[in-house]
């Protein structure tokens, strides 16, 4: 049996296992949106742990984090820095949202905001911003999966066919099992990624440099200053402390409000499960450490990949490691792409139907019809992302920079909705619109900004100012349900 065949067999077996775990969840859900989107609010501790951990981390972590360590040195420690505190606000936000979800039947973030203020158009705006962010993000996952397939078949299966193959599997299990498919595959994918990252992170420096210590010693010698934060920016020039610090702060501010993560508050079976998920999260976060080490292992490697985020597959497939390890790695990289991609696709479809079609455009559907509509949109979203990935190739990363950044601007709206009595729909809407506009402006034209800090800082400042001022200047509409809403948020349930 040739080495290439072993690599293929392992990765293929892994894809098969994902499909099996995804289409056969242990439990059946009701034939409704609540079942398909939120798993009938009955997910337990283990699945919640992996669904939140794998959803957030996988995509960026497996290829992006090593890419940062490899190309930007000490700057990569920023990833560890924001992850420490990023999920902590959810300890309070999550249970409040869960109570409201149970009481009013929410399964998405935006319908919660729209309901309190009796302003369905806010759900429409949030749905639009989310979908614009999700499609290029999903496209990037598909490109990543395609690249892995191409690399492990030595080019026999081109990237575009590989991406189609892997996301065909994702589509099948998400269609079949909804959030349970996402949850159970993420558990498999999470266990796989965690063990693989730690295994490889210890093995590869040993093989290439004779250990982690000697590796860093050599990097420090040959690239003085490279390992010190704030490190380098994307173009290789020194990064600044204001950029480093503001990037950490913005990432923390936005972390909990990413729609595909936030809506998992509606899936947990209890508030206690939610809180425990937040507390345990740093144990998942630690797996960034071996991934950074792996990226650093590429710094002095003999050859360089085309793009920094290909450093890990590049080193693994060129370092002469055993085909079994290479195969496991390829499967792990596919797990990384799939466990974020499935959650993103599932969230995008749920949001488009719940927030866009039903809430904002006021087209009610019966439970069965809703589930069918979400499945239909799911196929459309994956096809759209596939087309973007096939057409744009290199520039998807750039597209993402503009598209994904504005999501952080949901944060003031979420906090105001859950906590601030005096907030009005007009205020929240004004903050959201202005925040997104400012964020996109400075991401597009950074030279216009008065100080070189992360564009999200300007967006958030404008956002909060508009939210507060407009809220104070306006009164609640007749459809506003703030009193009943906040009372329900305050009422603890087990």
């Amino acid at each position, binding site marked *: 049996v040739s080495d290439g065949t072993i690599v293929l067999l392992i990765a293929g077996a892994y894809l098969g296992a994902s499909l099996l775990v995804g289409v056969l969840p242990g439990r059946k859900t009701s034939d409704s949106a609540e079942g398909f989107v939120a798993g009938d609010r009955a997910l337990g501790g283990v699945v919640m742990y992996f669904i939140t951990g794998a959803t957030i981390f996988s995509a960026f972590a497996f290829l992006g984090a090593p890419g940062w360590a490899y190309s930007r040195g*000490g700057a990569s*420690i920023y990833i*560890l*820095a924001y*992850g*420490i*505190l990023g999920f*902590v606000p959810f*300890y309070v936000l999550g249970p409040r949202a869960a109570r409201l979800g149970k009481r009013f039947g929410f399964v998405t973030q935006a319908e919660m905001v729209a309901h309190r203020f009796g302003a369905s158009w806010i759900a429409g705006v949030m749905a639009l911003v989310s979908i614009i962010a999700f499609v290029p993000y999903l496209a990037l996952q598909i490109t990543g999966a395609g690249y892995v397939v191409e690399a492990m078949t030595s080019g026999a299966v081109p990237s575009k066919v590989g991406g189609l193959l892997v996301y065909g599997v994702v589509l099948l299990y998400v269609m079949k099992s909804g959030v349970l498919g996402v949850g159970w595959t993420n558990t498999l994918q999470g266990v796989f990624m965690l063990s693989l990252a730690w295994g490889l992170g210890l093995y590869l420096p040993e093989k290439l440099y004779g*250990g*982690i*210590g*000697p*590796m*860093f*010693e050599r990097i*420090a010698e040959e690239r003085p200053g490279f*390992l*010190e*934060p*704030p490190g380098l920016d994307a173009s290789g020039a020194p990064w600044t*402390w204001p950029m480093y610090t503001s990037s950490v702060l913005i990432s923390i501010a936005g972390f909990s409000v990413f729609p595909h993560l936030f809506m998992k508050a509606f899936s947990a079976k209890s508030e*206690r499960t939610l*809180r*425990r998920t*937040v*507390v345990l999260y*740093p*144990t998942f*976060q*630690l797996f960034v*450490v071996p991934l*950074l*080490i792996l990226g650093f292992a590429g710094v002095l490697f003999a050859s360089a990949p085309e793009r920094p985020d290909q450093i890990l597959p590049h080193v693994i497939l060129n370092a002469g490691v055993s085909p079994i390890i290479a195969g496991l790695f390829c499967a792990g990289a596919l797990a990384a792409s799939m466990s974020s991609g499935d959650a993103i696709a599932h969230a995008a479809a749920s949001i488009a139907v719940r927030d866009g079609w039903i809430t904002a455009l006021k087209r009610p559907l019966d439970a069965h019809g809703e589930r069918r509509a979400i499945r239909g949109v799911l196929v459309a979203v994956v096809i759209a992302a596939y087309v973007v990935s096939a057409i744009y190739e290199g520039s998807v990363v750039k597209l993402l920079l503009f598209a994904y950044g504005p999501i952080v601007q949901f944060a003031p709206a979420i906090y105001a909705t859950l906590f601030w009595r005096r907030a009005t729909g007009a205020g929240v809407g004004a903050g959201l619109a202005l925040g997104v506009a400012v964020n996109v402006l400075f991401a597009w034209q950074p030279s216009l900004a008065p100080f070189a800090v992360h564009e999200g800082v300007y967006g958030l400042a404008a956002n909060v100012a508009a939210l507060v001022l407009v809220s104070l200047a306006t009164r609640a509409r007749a459809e506003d349900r703030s009193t009943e809403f906040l009372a329900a948020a305050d009422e*603890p349930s087990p």
Partner: protein
Amino acid sequence: MKLFAARVEPRILGLPFALAWMIGWTVATFAVLAVYHTLAERERA
């Protein structure tokens, strides 16, 4: 500007100091959260 933890030496378990420092904070955050959570759950019960 040179900040306290922005250094490579002394290396800890072979890791650059800045990286080990951040790992330390991750572990410390987990410990604090776990203690808080345990006490808070007892109170809620």
